[in-house]
């Protein structure tokens, strides 16, 4: 179960714990059904609570960017630490996704 909040057209989802391949399929499924249920135009992923992330997280973000783009929406991330930032920059994520403070 993911923690989320919907305000106007923005859906904010907080991820916590370790984001790796073993959990990413379940998270992806939950995110995609939340996006469909709420009809959100903007998906904000709050990553402050993440203790670990590898390239599975990059795939998750790029995948959600595609899902939201198809719906005419967008994705933003917040709470990224130096390490997650490094991973995202490596993959050019910030060309697709806004980085909030």
């Amino acid at each position, binding site marked *: 179960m993911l923690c989320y909040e919907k305000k106007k057209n923005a859906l904010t989802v907080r991820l916590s714990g*370790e984001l*790796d*391949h*073993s959990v*990413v*399929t379940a998270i*992806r499924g939950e995110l995609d059904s939340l996006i469909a249920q709420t009809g959100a135009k903007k998906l904000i992923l709050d990553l402050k609570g993440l203790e*670990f992330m*590898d*390239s*599975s997280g*990059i*795939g*998750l973000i*790029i*995948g959600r960017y595609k899902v939201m783009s198809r719906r005419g929406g967008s994705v933003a991330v917040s709470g990224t630490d130096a*390490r997650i930032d*490094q*991973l995202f920059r*490596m*993959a050019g994520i910030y060309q697709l996704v806004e980085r909030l403070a």
Partner: protein
Amino acid sequence: MSVINEMRLDFEALPENEAFARLVISGFMLPLDPTMEEMADVKTAVSEAVTNAIVHGYGGGTGFVRLSASYDAAGEMQIRVVDHGRGIDDVARARQPFFTTSPGDDRSGMGFTVMESFMDGLDVESAPGRGTTVCMTKRIRLRDDAVPQRA
């Protein structure tokens, strides 16, 4: 420099063992008194290699993954992840950023790129049907009072 500590671990190719492998490598490198940064670099690289063995090597089928590691008195770690799965036909292509054979699963194709950036050395040996061996090197900067020694 001669090796002063060494470990080997065989585990089944199951997703729940990705976190296990990260825990093991973190514990093994503790005597080197690594920074949080160095520890996270190694954990992330091991996570990538082990995930690849499970996801691509065995592709959901059964098999064992071997994680082995060693370090010398200068703090240089050697880490090896071996599977006996399907292997890679073109290693140079597989190592390119964004190359993936399973885009439908939201794999990013950034695994090898991450290993390369977070470690000091990466070598991949593989052949179709013969499995894959990933060797990585990481130099842990030793603090003056923390030079590990064999008793």
